[in-house]
């Protein structure tokens, strides 16, 4: 009689093989999408249309969330800083938290659930209703026509959304800290200005959100394209997009942070 742990070992093995295979498909998929970038940029209308759907339509949730996150930072930061009598550094705390971490990470998480899930569902349903096959039969490559413009739209809009999130957050912190609580306005802005470094802080934040944009869009597009063409398949793929990209964002954030802010 085989040992009792054999089925477990076997399922670990087959899961590993499946996942490695999927990773391979996903890599080839993104490679093809990148190879077709030229055709996307030759027809900017396609990218602009997707920028509207992924970027512009995500603006409301990004701006509102940014405002609230900034306001909470203002409150919490004031509470903590006032213990040490250094509430004039509130501007620094709000700006650095947002630009370095919260801006890129929270906006990417929101982007994954707002735009990523929509991308997966749309492409999955296009596949389920044979729209992608129809396109192929019309001698139009769906990777070039459907996937590539969406990829670039996601990659372009993510850093812009993160920047707007941070700007809105700083404004929220200002409203709570300066307008409502009464922290000195001059030191709020001047300390922020002298402490936030363009390369160290702002550029690194932009790099982060760019990387998150690539990860989220890649995951969302691949999950949609790879979804089994059924209602169940598409709903499963949409869930996986949100779960996988959220985990990817947080994991990548740790890796990027450990490289970027080593000496600080």
């Amino acid at each position, binding site marked *: 009689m085989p040992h009792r742990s054999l089925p477990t070992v076997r399922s670990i093995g087959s899961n590993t093989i499946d996942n490695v295979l999927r990773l391979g498909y996903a890599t080839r998929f993104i490679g093809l999408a990148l190879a077709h970038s030229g055709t996307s940029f030759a027809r900017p209308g396609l990218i602009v249309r997707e920028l509207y759907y992924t970027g512009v339509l995500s603006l409301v949730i990004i701006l509102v969330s940014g405002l609230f996150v900034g306001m909470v930072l203002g409150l919490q930061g004031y509470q903590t800083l006032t213990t040490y009598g250094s509430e004039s550094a509130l501007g620094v705390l709000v700006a650095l938290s947002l630009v370095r971490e919260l801006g890129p990470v929270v906006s990417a998480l929101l982007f994954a659930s707002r735009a990523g899930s929509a991308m997966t569902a749309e492409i999955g349903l296009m596949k389920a209703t*044979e*729209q992608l096959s*129809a396109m192929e039969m019309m001698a*139009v490559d769906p990777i070039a026509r459907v996937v590539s413009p969406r990829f670039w739209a996601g990659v372009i809009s993510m850093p812009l959304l993160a920047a707007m999130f941070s700007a809105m957050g700083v404004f929220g912190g200002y409203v709570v800290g300066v307008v409502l609580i009464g922290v000195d306005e001059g030191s709020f802005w001047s300390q922020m200005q002298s402490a936030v470094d363009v390369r160290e802080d702002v550029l690194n934040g932009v790099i982060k959100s760019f990387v998150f944009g690539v990860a989220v869009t890649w995951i969302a597009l691949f999950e949609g394209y790879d979804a089994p063409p059924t209602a169940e398949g598409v709903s499963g793929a949409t869930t996986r997009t949100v779960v996988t990209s959220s985990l990817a964002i947080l994991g990548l954030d740790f890796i990027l942070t450990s490289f970027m802010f080593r000496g600080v």
Partner: protein
Amino acid sequence: MSSDTLIEIKDVNFAYGRRPILTGINMTIPRGKVVALMGISGSGKTTLLRLIGGVMKPTSGEVWVNGQCTSALDTQGIYRMRRHMGMLFQFGALFTDLSVFDNVAFQMREHTELPESMIRDLVMMKLHAVGLRGAARLMPSELSGGMARRVALARAIALDPMIMMYDEPFTGLDPISLGVIANLVRELNDTLGTTSLVVTHDVQEALDVVDYVYYLSDGKMMAHGTPEEMRANRDPLVHQFVYGEAEGPVAYQYPSSDYAQELRMGERHAA
């Protein structure tokens, strides 16, 4: 392959892994004719259609389309070949984010450099051919099933294809729409000078409009002939299919265990 033959399928076998889907298929489709490919669900009809469209390649054997062997073509070659093919999908497969007009214009915009004014005229001509010129501004979600199928047909003939392929064009249509589509298949074939391949299991509608029938069962070509020959065919398998009889060589029951045993009749008797 003579010049009268547009599509020729020679000794084609196709398998998914070890599961054979098609075995020893031979088939010729002459230019200008409407040919039906019939068979029950799961008999391999759609697979054969995909082989002709170059979506998949045969495991062995050859598929010749207009003097080209699909196995010898690379992706670019397949795409070039498909520009001469039109395909109507089972439920139309219209692009739901584009209007009726843009759906029909899709291929013209992708593959030609035509000015927008000419595209407009061409789209209106195609839509007029299917009787839906007035629906140009509607979105696919605003169309009935039969209308969507006709728009998809207009889209498929947008670039005047040499070959039209229909994947189950009659499925899920009301009797009026069904008759309209069946007549359109014939009419478009004759007026545009195309060659048509209709994959279907709607026997009576298809027999009325096609020139020749191939009957596929279980991945094998079981019979072929003109509609009259098929109606008169004595083979029990063909007869059951053509007349839609429940009992015959194709069993109604999915293979299962003994019915009495399933209902535990044996146990009750023992008790």
